[in-house]
């Protein structure tokens, strides 16, 4: 059974139909990249997976839990699904360490000492040892983004969503963030990424989806999609990027 199963999902903002029947499966330990032009519904799709946006039709199953359910236990869902945003969205009034510790301590009511040890280990893992007591305002974009990844991992999710996490970063710091994600993937974390980093997608992804105007145009293993795309739209998009 796939970890995340998306079936015929439709989503509109008012009259604007953003997703028009999208389906995809993500198996445990798989790394999936979603690529496509701006406005194709990529970000909306992954935001739907952890219930930040609701859907009008279709089904999203995460470990068998239906997301499109009015009685959905959002907290139980979000414990399983971590998300990292383009703009990091750290809590500016808390230090890096406090950002990572906050949710496990305040929400999951886990013992503080235990959480702190885990948080310090996570900060080391994203290569930010020594920055524990620094506030987000004094960190670079790439550093903030890695704190955001550590913050999400502190909840011990089963799947991580990355919503254009390098889009707001300068090329220098993009590398360090991608390296962190790559290590996560290598450890077997299930990852769904919306990205414009084609080189990265090609290298890390097990499966790539190309979306345009709310539908999945085609999908396949990266070597296949990037070299012998069948659809004209995919080819045109890829030729503009490379």
């Amino acid at each position, binding site marked *: 059974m796939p970890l995340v199963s998306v079936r015929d999902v439709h989503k509109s903002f008012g009259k604007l139909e953003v997703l028009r029947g999208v389906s995809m499966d993500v198996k445990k330990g798989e790394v999936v990249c979603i690529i496509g032009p701006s406005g194709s519904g990529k970000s909306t799709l992954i935001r739907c997976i952890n219930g930040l946006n609701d859907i009008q039709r279709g089904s999203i199953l995460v470990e068998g839990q239906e997301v499109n359910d009015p009685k959905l236990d959002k907290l139980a869902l979000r414990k399983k699904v971590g998300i990292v945003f383009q703009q990091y969205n750290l809590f500016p009034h808390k230090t890096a360490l406090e950002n990572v510790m906050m949710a496990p301590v305040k929400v999951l009511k886990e013992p503080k000492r235990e959480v702190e040890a885990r948080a310090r280990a996570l900060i080391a893992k994203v290569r930010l040892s020594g920055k524990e007591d620094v506030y987000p305002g004094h960190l670079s974009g790439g550093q903030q983004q890695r704190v955001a990844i550590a913050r*999400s991992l502190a909840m011990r999710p089963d799947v991580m969503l990355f919503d254009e996490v390098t889009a707001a970063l300068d090329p220098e710091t993009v590398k360090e963030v991608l390296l962190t994600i790559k290590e996560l993937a290598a450890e077997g974390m299930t990852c769904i990424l919306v990205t414009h980093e084609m080189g990265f997608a090609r290298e890390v992804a097990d499966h790539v989806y190309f979306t345009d105007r709310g539908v999945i145009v085609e999908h396949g293993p990266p070597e296949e999609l990037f070299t012998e795309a069948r659809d004209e739209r995919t080819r045109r998009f890829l030729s503009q990027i490379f």
Partner: protein
Amino acid sequence: MFELIAPIFQRLFEETGWNFIIFYDRYEYDRFVTGISISLQLILWSTLLSLVIGVLGAWVQTARSALLRGIVDGYIQLFRNTPPLIQLLFFYFGLGAFTPQVDMGGYYEPMISAFTWAVLSLGIFGGAFNVEIFRSGIEAVPKATAEAAESLCFSSWQTYAYVTLPLAFRISLPALTNNLVSLAKTTSLAYVISVPEMTYTLNQVWSDNINVPEMMLVLFLFYVVVVSLIAAGLHALEKRLALPGYGR
């Protein structure tokens, strides 16, 4: 304290005619100290009431019920758009006329004292501004920051308490300082409903002793000192809470 300064002001009066009677006459001195105490209590309680109203009102304004929001909106319009002097008179003479009298053993006293009416009236006046100040602070917190909290399993109440409110409070502080300073000064209006605060007290002193310029000077300095202390305290708080790496 009194023993220390009394001879100095006694001599000043005898030699120059400058009559700071509150600093050398025991009776007037006690009156003056009571005035300080009442003024400070009035400032403290009306400020606290205005803050409670501000936080609750701003919270209600984020509510879904249009009725609740409308009530808070009406309250703001009513108390922001009328002079505080009229509000005090309205509360004390208008509403005060309908409150029951209590038998104090031979004589009757209104159940709600002039002081209490002043706290209520000024608190409600200041609160109307605080609601707007806190609301603008809440609206200035990026939605994405609250969304990040939600995606980390925070309930909407936890998001409000741990993320939105702490950030909104910081954003609101400069405007809040202005309003609380203004409220502290407005407490002098309680004079018109005979609350024996500083203005009222000194008015009595100068009526009894015909030393208007001297008492005016004291009154003026009293507010300078008190309001400066309040402003300094709030500025210190603002500095302490400033988000590192943002703004200054």
